[in-house]
């Protein structure tokens, strides 16, 4: 664990220098709001950007990703044999990621990297990626990350955590990956460990004061699944829902995907797309049976997955990091904080 000081006047130079090693991702602002994007040489991350509309999950888990390809030309020896799509997993650095988004990646990892299964696409991308987070001195009004096991200065899942001190960044280097990144940037001005940690602690405390939502999740684990499943409140929760995929697509922890095959001339590709439990196609059976036929079923699935099934299966808290993106983007103002409170407080009569 060591700290380094990065003068902001050296920041851009360092980032440009690191391009020899890393593909850079970071927040940028365009006409559709802030997004995390791959930055071309010269393109700089907007480190003090508003929260990005979409989370950084796409860096490891693109919305559409080709996973297998095949040649359909029967004159070829290996025709119709599906092979892993060629994809480069050269080092990449995500700059300016918010601490809650880094935790989200650890939650998604629970699904893609298990004892029994290792999703090679996600895991290879994960291993190639260095996460350089920035502490949030001023959390947004939608931020409730202190209730979800992280917070504005959480270190989980990060390789480096930066603190913005106006004219400089104070960087807490957390992993060997983080050390390698700092070295590639040429950031080597060491800072006193003890003093720096005190500063981080103060900033963290100040930042956390700005988060007003204190979300109760303590009783979810002890509830009966069926009681919650059959609870009478779902019709009311779901009434306004239009069943768009916004909440699930902007969510940093939603990991469901759907597999599609497409052919064009003599080429075939199998790819995966983000799926959304809001869609009538989600888990629709080939038989025609749809286990989640109505909007109420689908809304219930989303909240039960995040706030109950996940809690029970992984014992890692809720499948939500408190970023508030779904709250901010939902066209009909369905608020996961309210639904969580209803579920946490529910007692079967």
């Amino acid at each position: 664990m060591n700290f380094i000081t990065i003068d902001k006047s050296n920041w851009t130079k360092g980032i440009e220098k690191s391009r020899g090693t890393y593909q850079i991702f970071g927040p940028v602002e365009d006409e559709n709001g802030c997004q995390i994007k791959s930055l071309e040489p010269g393109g700089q991350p907007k480190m003090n950007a508003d929260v990005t509309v979409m989370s950084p999950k796409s860096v490891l888990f693109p919305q559409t990703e080709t996973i297998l390809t095949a040649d359909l030309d029967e004159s070829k020896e290996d025709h119709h044999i599906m092979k892993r799509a060629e994809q480069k997993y050269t080092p990449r650095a995500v700059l300016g990621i918010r601490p809650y988004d880094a935790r989200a990646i650890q939650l998604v990892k629970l699904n893609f990297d298990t004892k029994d299964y290792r999703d090679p696409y996600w895991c290879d991308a994960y291993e190639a990626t260095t996460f350089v987070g920035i502490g949030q001195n001023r959390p947004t009004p939608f931020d409730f990350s202190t209730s979800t096991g992280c917070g504005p200065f959480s270190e989980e899942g990060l390789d480096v955590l930066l603190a913005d001190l106006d004219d400089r960044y104070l960087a807490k280097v957390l992993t060997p990956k983080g050390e390698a990144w700092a070295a590639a940037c040429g950031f080597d001005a060491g800072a006193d460990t003890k003093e720096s940690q005190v500063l981080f602690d103060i900033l963290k405390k100040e930042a956390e004061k700005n988060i007003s939502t204190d979300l109760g999740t303590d009783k979810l684990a002890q509830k009966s699944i069926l009681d919650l499943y059959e609870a009478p409140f779902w019709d009311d929760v779901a009434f306004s829902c239009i069943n768009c995929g916004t909440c699930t697509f902007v969510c940093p922890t939603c990991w469901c995907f759907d597999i599609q095959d497409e052919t064009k001339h003599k080429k075939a590709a199998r790819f995966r797309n983000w799926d959304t439990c809001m869609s009538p196609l989600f888990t629709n059976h080939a038989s025609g049976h749809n286990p989640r036929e109505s909007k109420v079923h689908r809304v219930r699935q989303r909240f039960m997955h995040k706030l109950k099934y996940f809690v029970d299966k992984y014992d890692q808290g809720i499948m939500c990091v408190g970023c508030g993106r779904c709250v901010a983007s939902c066209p009909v103002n369905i608020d996961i904080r309210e639904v969580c409170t209803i579920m946490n407080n529910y007692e079967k009569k």
Partner: protein
Amino acid sequence: MDTCIEKIKAICTDLLANGEVEKVIGFAGGSIPMATRPIAVTSEADVEKLVFNAFCGLNLANYVSKNNLPKNGAKIAVVAKGCDARNLVTHMVENQVPREKVFIIGVPCTGMVDKRMIAQRFEDEITQCTQDGDTLTVTSALQQEVIAKKDVLRHNCQYCTHRNPPVYDVMSGDPVEEQILDQPFPDVDHIASMDPETRWDHFAELTKNCIRCYACRNACPLCYCPTCFVDESSPQWVGKGQDKTDITTFHFLRAFHCAGRCTDCGACVEACPMGINVRDFTRKLNKDALDLFGWEAGMDLDRRPPLDVYSPDDPDDFIK
């Protein structure tokens, strides 16, 4: 307009008390600044939850369909701005819901505000917003602004010529003056004046950040097909990934399905999480419907839409 809310509540209380309606679909206050939430009020006690303000930007006709009408003789009441009422009329003209099942509580509307336009005036996130008549007081951690509603109206509201519901059962206020516009479609004219390549680029740029969440489709009262063509899987009509052609296909087809039906209520743009002005697609069709057929959707229960009648006077030769 916000004085309407007391009248709306009084009307709703009466309707629910005398059993004339099973529920009232209206707007409730939201949990975050500048948000409202569609709600179905079924008891007099819940009438107090209703609000009507400059943030009621969705279209409540979207919550009325043949699948959710009361089974008995009761009706559904809907709090309806000009555009909501026109979409209810469109539902009726398209035989989705019978007129006698819907009680329209008309609201004379002076427009909804563009939340993105307001957010752009702030360096940080908005923490509070209150409305007093035509004035909004908007607060963030760093600044506070008093904004005139007329300066931040949504584009579709700026160009609205039917603020008063054309069909209603009761009005919740005196009709407001309708706008008369010299140039009702400057945006369409602008796009039409582009050379084909530039125009193509315009639409490619427009949808480049589309995430295919289908919020635009799902917020639209016109999109009531039991299975949308993009959700059809046997056979599959369109690819489901982020391929540009597939995204464009979705947007083009969605727009064409709205031809002669769209009321330009703006719910699609309101719902889009990526801030895409999908009205750039539908507005051209609205202009064509007006120019070629003198048609504006949802104005009249007794007139058939131009695309479901044959007329010897059709302006196009190919059909004669």
